[in-house]
């Protein structure tokens, strides 16, 4: 095939990008080379629109062993233990083919983690769908949940937490973000940097097929009406093979024969070989005839661009080939020596003894395009004034029930019951709480993990929204008694070529930076997903933050269920009744304008750290952060979980009762304490200048708001638990 500008454009390259390729090579690329450039230079692999801004993220800290740039981030959890973790998007494939798209998303992120030598110990996910009324939503939700479960369950890795939301902006573009945590010894972490000359380059895992060719390019373009035609670009997962690959890799890693290892994810053999060579400042020579292929007559172009799953590329020490092969034979996996490292600093490919590609590595990586896209700053919207007559007719209990049954608040048990969340025998906090918690096997330590996003806040004001998501993650970890350590982010946005979408990205990233810097909660890994839009309509900006925290003694873990009658509940943090962009404003008043709640980073940090002091002194019986739906929703959830009621005190503030109960001011928690500890607790709170109010006393079975207004926990529980299962069974 003759390569020209049109062929390049068909590969998703811009005309000037094609001109630059010709200039760098000082010739016209052949079709295989063009394919390789298109794979490396697309948005998904090159981060060409985001690189400039991602540099601003704080990525360092005392506990950070490896920040962004590797397969995943690594943090220190003491005693020579480390946690490897990352979140990644698989949005486009999941919309086209929900089961396989979601399944291979889970498979891909687990591979990123065990590539570094870590055994995966927990999975999480953040999934976002269109309006429940949209005709595709139900099938997409079912398919995605089955896919996530199908892969994770088979791997034997528990899915311990997650987040699901519905919003019409995802009607034509759902989001599927998968996160994995793995456990590794600090001195046995593996990296992707090749080193040494003439070292054998090994291919292991599944055979290469024609699936997923151009997957990464597909993920770097807008959707249009021809999207169904792109089904063949979705990869097909085989979790069984991945389980074998995991065990085989960990067995090989127990020895000392691996120099570098890299999984074949987006852009398959192309990106894995280029990244290894680039990081090691070396060249790699590959004989494509030796690559194990599933189908006959695959061309070099197809072999290089296939995104077949469950494959790894390894640079071995010389002479270790036989020993390594034995392990992969034992696990019935393909093993082939396909090339070697060279000093040429080029990617040189041979096929049937002919050279089919010859590209300097730096042209693919360092010289890849980087854009300073135009972006638009967003203004803080004006506050709305709630009119008395709008809320006069509202009854607090009915409103609470409506909010508890809202698709974005209701119990997601229908989803997480389909995920094995108890395999590996260390899950000590299941889905449905503030964070999932797994023990570090055989120790007293536990790791807490949470994944959060607040698209509505980010849409209303990206800078505030970006900060809020980081704070929410911080709070969720604090609520289970964990000390927050680091985060991973999955930045889901519309087209970077649209100034407004680009502005949302830039300002969300800035918000994330500010909060993570202040809270000493650095970003150690992540992924950017642009072009989440169909035709001209972009999604609401949806940065998802995955946070990790450490619990040194798992007996001190906190859960959110109210524990004992007679205990008292406090609200930590100040309640001012911010109602704009709240569940209440948007869903009950139908008011979609206004600013999101403000973030005060000092209070966030101070409140959270003080709470950890209370946990350390065994003074907290249960805790839950106040988020969507405000105080009353948080309290109702603690009641439902604990099968207990509460007698709420009359609010002291001058604000309206609705604003008091449903306002979404940030930096707040509800904690349960024993009456006899009251003085100790208030002393610590006062000493640290933490604002608190006494909320009420825990009683049996009913929520009393004032003497006249009450509701049973069973009623609240029914409102909360029935929406999703009813929706899915209709």
């Amino acid at each position, binding site marked *: 095939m003759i390569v020209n500008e049109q062929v390049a454009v068909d590969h998703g390259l811009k005309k000037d990008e094609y001109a630059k390729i010709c200039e760098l090579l000082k010739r016209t690329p052949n079709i295989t080379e063009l394919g390789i450039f298109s794979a490396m230079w697309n948005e998904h692999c090159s981060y060409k629109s985001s690189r400039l801004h991602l540099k601003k993220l704080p990525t360092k800290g005392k506990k950070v062993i490896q920040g962004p740039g590797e397969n995943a981030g690594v943090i220190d959890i003491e005693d020579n233990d480390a946690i490897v973790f990352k979140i990644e998007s698989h949005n486009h494939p999941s919309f086209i083919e929900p089961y396989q798209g979601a399944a291979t998303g889970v498979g891909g992120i687990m591979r990123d983690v065990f590539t570094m030598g870590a055994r995966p110990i927990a999975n999480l996910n953040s999934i976002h769908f269109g309006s429940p009324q949209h005709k595709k939503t139900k099938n997409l939700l079912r398919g995605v949940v089955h896919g996530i479960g199908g892969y994770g369950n088979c791997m034997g890795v528990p899915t311990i937490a997650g987040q699901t939301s519905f919003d019409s902006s995802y009607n034509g573009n759902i989001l599927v973000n998968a996160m994995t945590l793995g456990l590794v010894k600090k001195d046995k972490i593996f990296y992707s940097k090749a080193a040494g000359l003439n070292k054998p380059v090994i291919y292991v895992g599944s055979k290469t097929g024609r699936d997923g060719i151009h997957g990464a390019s597909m993920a770097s373009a807008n959707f249009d009406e021809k999207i169904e035609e792109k089904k063949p670009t979705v990869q097909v997962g085989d979790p069984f093979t991945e389980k074998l690959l995991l065990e085989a890799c960990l067995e090989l890693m127990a020895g000392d024969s691996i120099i570098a290892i890299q999984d074949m994810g987006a852009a398959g053999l192309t990106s894995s070989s280029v990244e290894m060579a680039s990081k090691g400042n070396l060249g790699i020579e590959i004989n494509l005839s030796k690559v194990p292929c599933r189908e006959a007559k695959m061309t070099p172009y197809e072999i290089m661009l296939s995104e077949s799953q469950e494959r790894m590329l390894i640079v071995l020490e010389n002479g270790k080939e036989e020993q390594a092969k034995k392990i992969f034979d034992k696990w019935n996996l393909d093993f082939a020596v396909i090339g070697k490292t060279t000093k040429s600093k080029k990617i040189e490919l041979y096929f049937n003894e002919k050279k089919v590609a010859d590209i300097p590595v730096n042209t693919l990586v360092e010289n890849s395009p980087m854009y300073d896209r135009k972006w638009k700053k967003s203004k803080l919207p004006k506050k709305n004034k709630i009119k008395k007559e709008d809320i006069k007719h509202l009854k607090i209990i009915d409103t609470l029930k409506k909010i508890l049954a809202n698709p974005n608040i209701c119990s997601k048990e229908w989803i997480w019951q*389909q995920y094995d969340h108890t*395999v590996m*025998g260390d899950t000590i906090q299941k889905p449905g709480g503030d964070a999932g918690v797994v023990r570090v096997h055989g120790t007293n330590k536990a790791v807490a993990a949470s994944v959060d996003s607040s698209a509505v806040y980010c849409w209303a004001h990206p800078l505030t929204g970006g900060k809020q998501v980081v704070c929410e993650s911080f709070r969720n970890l604090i609520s289970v008694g964990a000390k927050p350590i680091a985060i991973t982010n999955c930045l889901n946005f519309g087209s970077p070529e649209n100034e407004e979408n680009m502005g949302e990205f830039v300002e969300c990233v800035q918000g994330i930076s500010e909060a993570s810097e202040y809270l000493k909660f650095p970003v150690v890994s992540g992924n950017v997903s642009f072009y989440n839009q169909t035709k001209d309509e972009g999604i609401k900006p949806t940065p998802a933050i995955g946070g990790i925290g450490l619990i040194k003694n798992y007996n001190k873990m906190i859960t959110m269920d109210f524990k004992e009658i007679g205990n008292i509940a406090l609200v930590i943090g100040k309640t001012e009744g911010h109602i704009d962009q709240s569940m209440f404003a948007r869903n009950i008043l139908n008011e979609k304008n206004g600013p999101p709640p403000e973030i005060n980073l000092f209070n966030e940090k101070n409140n959270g750290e003080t709470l950890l002091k209370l946990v350390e002194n065994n003074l907290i019986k249960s805790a839950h952060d106040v988020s969507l739906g405000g105080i009353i929703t948080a309290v109702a959830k603690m009641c439902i979980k604990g099968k207990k009621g509460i007698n709420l005190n009359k609010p002291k503030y001058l604000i309206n009762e609705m604003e008091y109960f449903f306002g979404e001011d940030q930096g707040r928690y509800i904690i349960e304490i024993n009456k006899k500890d009251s003085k100790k607790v208030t002393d610590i709170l006062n000493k640290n200048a933490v604002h608190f109010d006494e909320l009420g006393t825990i009683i049996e079975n009913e929520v009393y708001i004032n003497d006249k207004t009450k509701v049973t926990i069973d009623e609240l529980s029914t409102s909360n638990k029935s929406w999703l299962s009813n929706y899915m069974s209709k």
Partner: protein
Amino acid sequence: MKSSVITFPGSNCDRDMDVALKKFGFKNKMVWHADAELPKSDLVVLPGGFSYGDYLRCGSMASKSKIMQSVINFANSGGLVMGICNGFQILVETGLVPGVLLRNKYLEFICKNVFVKINDKQNKYFKNVNNDVLEFHIAHNEGNYFCTNDQLKKIEDNNQIAINYCDENGNIEDQFNPNGSIKNIAGIFNKEKNVLGMMPHPERMIDTSLSGEDGSIFFKNLIKNLK
């Protein structure tokens, strides 16, 4: 007491079972599916997971693996063989216990705590367990026990049902059946009651921090009965 846990390609509850058996005093060995000989054992466990990716039929390929001939001989000579979840599916495929396991009635994977009522205590597994009802944990996609009417009659005549799904008070009713199993069957013995297949995972219920502790009751009792 010596136990052996078989690891098949795709097993993923083998480590959990190893941890549980050791916790309650077994000297456990992990045995690779391609081995020919079983080590000397008082108990052999086929663990949960997705042996051979559940391809063809759950448990079917594992039932033909090399070690299984030794396991079958061991069972036929009266040795204790317990299959949990995928292990139960493998046992069914070998014919050591009757019946088959179909996909769950609602076609969804289920992971949750369930109550089971012990139907028979005249066997090494449940003898001397004080409780009649235990809280166990299930996590499966194909646990819907099915057999023919003739088989069911034999099973009942021989009192081969080990445990049934029930509520916390031991009521065996349809609404407490998580997967559509005939007669709420959660576990079943062979005729001689030395082979037990069950869907619930006792190994996930062995300390207060996990889903519960009723698995501890099961294992403590099991090792006592073997001594």
